[in-house]
C-alpha cells in the first residue's frame, strides 16, 4: 500500500525552481534514504510532505490524504524531526515534551509516562528537570527525536537525525529505526552519513538540483553506477567525481608552501 505519493511536484523560490517535477511512490513499512548535495531540494520535499509548505505545484498525497486539504489530519499521524535542534531552551526537557504532547492532543498521563520513560531510555533522566540551554547538541537532538515520536506516528520524517549524536546514540537511533520499521512504520529520512543510509535503507533516492537522479535499493544502484559504495555512487551521480580529490590535493599544497 502506498503511503506517500508525489506527482510532478514543483516548487519555486524567487523564480528559481528548487524542485523540478518530483514523482515518488513509497509503500508502507519502508525505510527510505533521501540523499543529495546541499541545496538539492531534500528539506523542501520533506516540508511539502509534512504539510509545512503548501504552495507548490503538482500533487502530494500522504496516508491517502491530500497535504494541501488535510494538513492537520496528516500532521497528527506523522512525526517530523528537523535537522536544527530549534527548541525553546529555557524550558526543561520534560516541560517541552509536555508542551509538544499537548499539541498532539495526547492525554496528560500518557505524556508524563512516555516523556519519563523515553528520557530515561535516552539517559537524559538526570537532566530532565534542567533547562535545555545547558544541554549539549546531542542531548537536544535526543529531545527533538522524542518530541517527534511521542505520539507514535505512522510515518516518520527525519532530516539529518544523526547529526550531533554521540557514537552510542547513533547506534541506538539506527536500532530504533530498524525496530520502527519492523513494527510497520514508514521512515523517510535524509542524511549525509552515507554508510548509515547504505546499511539501513530499503530504498535510496538521490536528488540533485531538484530532480531525482537515482532510485532503488543499494544493490540496484551499485549495479547501475558500477561503484562499490554509496559514497562513490553519490559522487559519480552528482557530478563531483574527481573534484574532491583535486581540492584535497590543493589544500595539502597550500599547507606545505
Amino acid at each position, binding site marked *: 500500500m502506498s503511503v506517500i505519493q508525489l506527482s510532478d511536484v514543483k516548487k519555486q523560490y524567487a523564480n528559481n525552481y528548487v524542485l523540478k517535477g518530483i514523482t515518488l511512490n513509497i509503500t508502507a513499512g519502508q525505510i527510505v534514504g533521501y540523499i543529495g548535495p546541499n541545496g538539492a531540494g531534500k528539506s523542501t520535499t520533506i516540508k511539502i510532505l509534512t504539510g509545512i509548505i503548501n504552495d507548490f505545484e503538482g500533487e502530494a498525497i500522504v496516508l491517502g490524504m491530500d497535504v494541501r486539504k488535510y494538513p492537520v489530519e496528516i500532521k497528527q499521524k506523522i512525526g517530523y524531526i528537523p535537522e536544527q535542534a530549534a527548541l525553546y*531552551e529555557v524550558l526543561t526537557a520534560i516541560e517541552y515534551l509536555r508542551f509538544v504532547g*499537548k499539541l498532539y492532543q495526547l492525554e496528560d498521563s500518557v505524556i508524563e509516562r512516555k516523556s519519563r520513560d523515553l528520557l530515561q531510555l535516552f539517559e537524559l533522566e538526570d537532566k530532565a528537570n534542567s533547562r535545555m540551554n545547558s544541554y549539549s547538541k546531542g542531548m537536544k537532538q535526543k529531545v527533538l527525536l522524542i518530541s517527534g515520536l511521542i505520539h507514535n506516528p505512522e510515518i516518520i520524517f527525519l532530516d539529518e537525525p544523526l547529526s550531533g549524536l554521540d557514537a552510542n546514540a547513533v547506534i541506538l537511533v539506527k536500532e530504533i529505526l530498524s525496530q520502527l520499521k519492523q513494527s510497520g512504520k514508514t521512515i523517510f529520512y535524509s542524511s549525509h552519513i552515507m554508510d548509515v543510509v547504505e546499511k539501513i535503507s530499503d530504498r535510496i533516492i538521490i536528488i540533485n538540483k531538484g530532480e531525482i537522479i537515482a532510485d532503488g535499493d543499494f544493490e540496484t544502484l551499485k549495479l547501475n553506477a558500477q561503484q562499490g559504495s554509496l559514497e562513490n555512487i553519490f559522487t559519480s551521480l552528482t557530478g563531483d567525481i574527481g573534484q574532491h580529490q583535486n581540492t584535497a590535493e590543493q589544500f595539502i599544497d597550500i599547507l606545505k608552501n
Partner: protein
Amino acid sequence: MDKLILKVVLFFAKLLVKQGIDFEKLKTIVETKLLIDRRRVYMNWRPRQQKENSNPLLITLVIYTVFGLFVGVMVFKIESFVICMALIHSYILFMMALTMITDFSSVLLDTTDNQIILSKPVNSRTLFIARLVHILVYLLQFAIAFSLLPVIFIFIAYGFTIGIASIGTALLTVMFAVFITYLLYAVILKFSNEQKVKDIVGYFQIFVTIFFAAAFQIMPRLVNFNNLLSIFELHWYSYFLPPVWMALTLESVKQLNFDTLHLLMIACAILLPLLTFWVMIKYLAPSFSKKLAALDNVESKKKDLFRKNANHINLSQKLSKLLCNSKIENSSFGMVWKITGRDKAFKMQLYPSMAYMAVFIFVFVFKNGQDFNQLWQNLPTTKMFLFFAYLPIFTIGSSIGFMSFHENFLASWIYQSTPINQPGQLLTGGIKALLTKFFIPIFLTLFLFVFYVWGFAIVNDFVLAFFNNIFIFFLIANLGNKYLPFSREQNSKEQSGRILYLILQMLTIAILVGLHYLIVENNLLIYCIIPISAVGCYLLLKRLQNLQWAQISF
C-alpha cells in the same frame, strides 16, 4: 578609546604582573575580544530601537555621566563634607559592582574561553589576566563616566588638592568594587551551580533596569529634598564601610588632620583595596577559573527530583486546566507561563514597565510638593480610584507584543509541524497566561488598596474596570499583526504601522476611561454596562480563538 585604554591597562598590568605572562598573546586575546564585543551588544547597552551604526556603549556612558550629575550636585547641597563624600563613593561602589554583575557576567563566567583558547598554546595565567584586562578596559570607561562630574564638582567646591585626592579615592573604590564582585561570584559558585549563577545575574539585570527606570523619574525630584539628607549620620559601624574610609581620607587631606582615626581610615582606604586586589589576582581568581572550568563537567544528580516531579501538578497546570478550553490553549498557556518567568529579555521589557506603575502613582497621585497627610485625607473625595482601576492596562498592555519575541524564535517550527487547526488558540492560551500571571495579581492588589481607601462604593466601578481592562487587552491582540508566542526575532525590523497601532491603543483606553468617568455617579448604568463589557470580552476572545493560519503573521 578602547585601544588607548587598553594601552594604559596593559602598561599597568606589565608593572604589576611579570611572571608567567606572555604579553603578546595577552594583547592579541584582548584585542580580539574587544573586536567581538563591538559586534555583540550587551544587554544593558542595547537601546530599544538599535540602529546599524549606533554605539550603545557610548550611549550608556553618556547616561551614566548624566547620573553622575545628580550625585555630583550633592557636593553643593550637603553641608557635611564626610557624609557627602561617603555618599559619592557609595554611589561609585554601588554602580561599579552593579555594572560588573549586569554587563560583565558574560565575560567573567565565560567558559568558552577554556575550549577555544586553552586548546592553543596559551597558559591559563595569561588567559586569566587577559580576562581581567578585558574587563578593566570597560570598567575604566565606566568608572570615568560615574565619577567624572562628581570629581569635577569636588574640584570646583573644594579646590585642586581635594580634587586630585578624590581621583585617587575613586580609583581605589573601583578596585574594591571589582573585588566585591569577584567575591560574590566565588561565594555563589561555591554553594551553587551554573544555572543558579545565571539566574542570579538575570535577577540583578532586571533589578538594575527597574532601578534605572524608576530612578530617572524619581531622582530629579529627590534632589530638592534637602531635609531627607539630614537623616544620614555616621554610626560606629559606618567605619567598616569603604566609602567612609574614602570620605575620612579626603577629610584628613582637607583639614590636614592626621589623628589616629584618620590615619587608620587612610590605611584602610589605601591598603585594603590594593591588598584585596592582590589577593584576588593571586588566589581568588585562579581558583575561580578552575571552578568555571569545572562547571562544564558538573553533572547534577536530579534523579529523585525527576521522580518527585513526575506526579506533581504545579500552579500553572491547575490554572490552565481551569481557564483553557482546549489542549492547544492549555499547552500554550503552560509554555507562556513558564517562558515569561525565565526569559530574561521578556522580563527586562515587562518588569520595568511594571515598575513604572509605582512611578505613575508617585507622579500623579502623590504629587511632589504637596502635603502627604492632606493628600491622603482628601483622596477618598476624589475620583482617583479610576486611575488605579485602569493603571494595569497601561503597563501590562504591551506584554502581548513582548510575548511574540524570543531568542529561540526558530523553535516555533513546532507550531507548523503539529496538527493545529486553529492557531488562534495558541495566541489565546498565551494571552490567558499573561492575564492570569501579570494582570490579575496587579489588579487585585490595586483593588485592595482602593477598597481600603474608598470603601465598598467603588466595587461596581472596579468590576466594570476589570472587564474593560480585559476588553482593551483583547482588543490590542486583535489589532495589528497576529504573531504566535515566541515566534519572532527580537530585532525584527518590521515596525510599520506601530505608531498608528499605539495611538489606536491609547485612544481606546482614553475613550473607555472617559466613558467610565462620565457614568461614574450612575450606579445603575454601571451595572447595566458590566455585562455588555463582559460580552465584548467574550466576542473578542472568540474572534482570536478562531483565527486561521492565513491570518497569522510570521
